[in-house]
């Protein structure tokens, strides 16, 4: 059979895999955004007793290879009484990794805003939450967005690793198709094109935002 016929035949399977990949990435990005913003804000404004464990967590997670973290959660979880099943375990592992990244980006964005801004806002009688909402966050968001989108592409790329714990994502469905057709090259290239299309869209959005917000960088 010609390569193109093979691809047409395999398309439903690959699309199902792509849906799983996108589902995992979407969950990870959403969960990590919430957790990362909370941890990142605590790293800047929290008391020392809160900052220390968070710093420890972030530095520990960033020191572990993503693949090892996935194996750790997937294999150690059940043995330690946390039997999640492969899908939640994969999402948890990727979320931990992404949360550490997002927390670090949030910390960088918040602490890059000159402290005079906060002092000025407090001086005119705004409460701390008001200062955050009206003064700090609008400025920090512009510095947060471009690197955050890069961390989203990292999450999408990292999601390919979940194929190694038995989840039939895009990567694993490509492997299955190759296992049946013995035609690795067309399918790996097709997979590369799909991942490229997703990530390139994201990373060029990140570059455009960066150029647009260039004026807020000193």
């Amino acid at each position, binding site marked *: 059979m010609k390569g193109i016929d093979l691809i047409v035949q395999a398309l439903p399977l690959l699309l199902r895999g792509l849906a799983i990949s996108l589902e995992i990435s979407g969950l990870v990005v959403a969960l990590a955004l919430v957790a990362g913003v909370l941890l990142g804000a605590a790293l800047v404004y929290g008391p020392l007793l809160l900052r220390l464990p968070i710093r420890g967590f972030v530095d520990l997670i960033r020191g*572990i290879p993503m693949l*090892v973290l996935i194996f750790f959660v997937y*294999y150690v979880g059940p043995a330690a009484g946390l039997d999640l099943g492969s899908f939640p375990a994969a999402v948890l592992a990727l979320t931990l990794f992404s949360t550490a990244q997002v927390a670090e980006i949030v910390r960088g964005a918040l602490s890059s805003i000159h402290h005079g801004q906060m002092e000025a806002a407090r001086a005119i009688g705004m409460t701390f939450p008001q200062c955050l909402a009206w003064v700090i966050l609008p400025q920090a968001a512009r510095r947060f967005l471009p690197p955050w989108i890069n961390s989203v592409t990292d999450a999408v*790329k990292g999601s390919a690793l979940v194929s*190694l714990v038995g989840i039939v994502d895009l990567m694993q469905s490509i492997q299955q198709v190759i296992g049946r057709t013995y035609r690795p090259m067309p399918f790996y290239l097709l997979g590369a094109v799909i991942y*490229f299309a*997703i*990530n*390139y869209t994201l990373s060029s959005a990140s570059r455009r935002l960066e150029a647009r917000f260039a004026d807020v960088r000193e």
Partner: protein
Amino acid sequence: MPYQLNFTLVWLHFGRLAWGLLLSLELAVLAIFAGTVLGLALALAHVSGGRAVRTAVAAYVECIRNVPLLLLVYLVFYGIPTVIDLRYNAVTSFVVTLSLYAAAYLVEVFRAGLLAVAKGLTDAGKAIGLTAWQRLWHVRLPVMLRIVLPSLSNTFVSLFKDTSVASVLAVPELTYGAQWINFNTFRIIEVYLVVTPMYVVTGYVILGLLRRLERRLAIR
């Protein structure tokens, strides 16, 4: 009955982990070296080349950076030999892949560094009669190195962590050692409790050494 931790079997096979870590480091060093050479060459081409060269370098960077490393590793090892008559083993294949991957990240680092070298320095080099190569070797590269070293250190450490992907080609590095002990002794918790700190500690030792280098090279 709660699970009883038993590290005996992990220590019995600890050699696999120790040699595995050594191989991980070797893979990282080789890929970092090749990736640095290629990345620097591409960055110089991008900075001083014409429009066509810049587009080609940008296309290379985008194509590699937007695809998962795992897919690239499979593509090089399982895909390419089916279309080109080339034979290579898993280690060579992985080192080549990681080098190409490293280069795509390092191009950006070096390009930013080269652009950040003050124009006055190269002009001064020109004024005292240095040739283009001498200006590059004695002025632009040393200054660039000091500028990029912090982001270079981070890239190097993440490349070291990326060597764990080599386990999918059964390259006997640290993660593969962990998998082997896992499948052969079922001491799953124990082996990951040993391997994870090995990665973390090694990563931070590398980072610490590079930070010392940064301080030593810093202009006082």
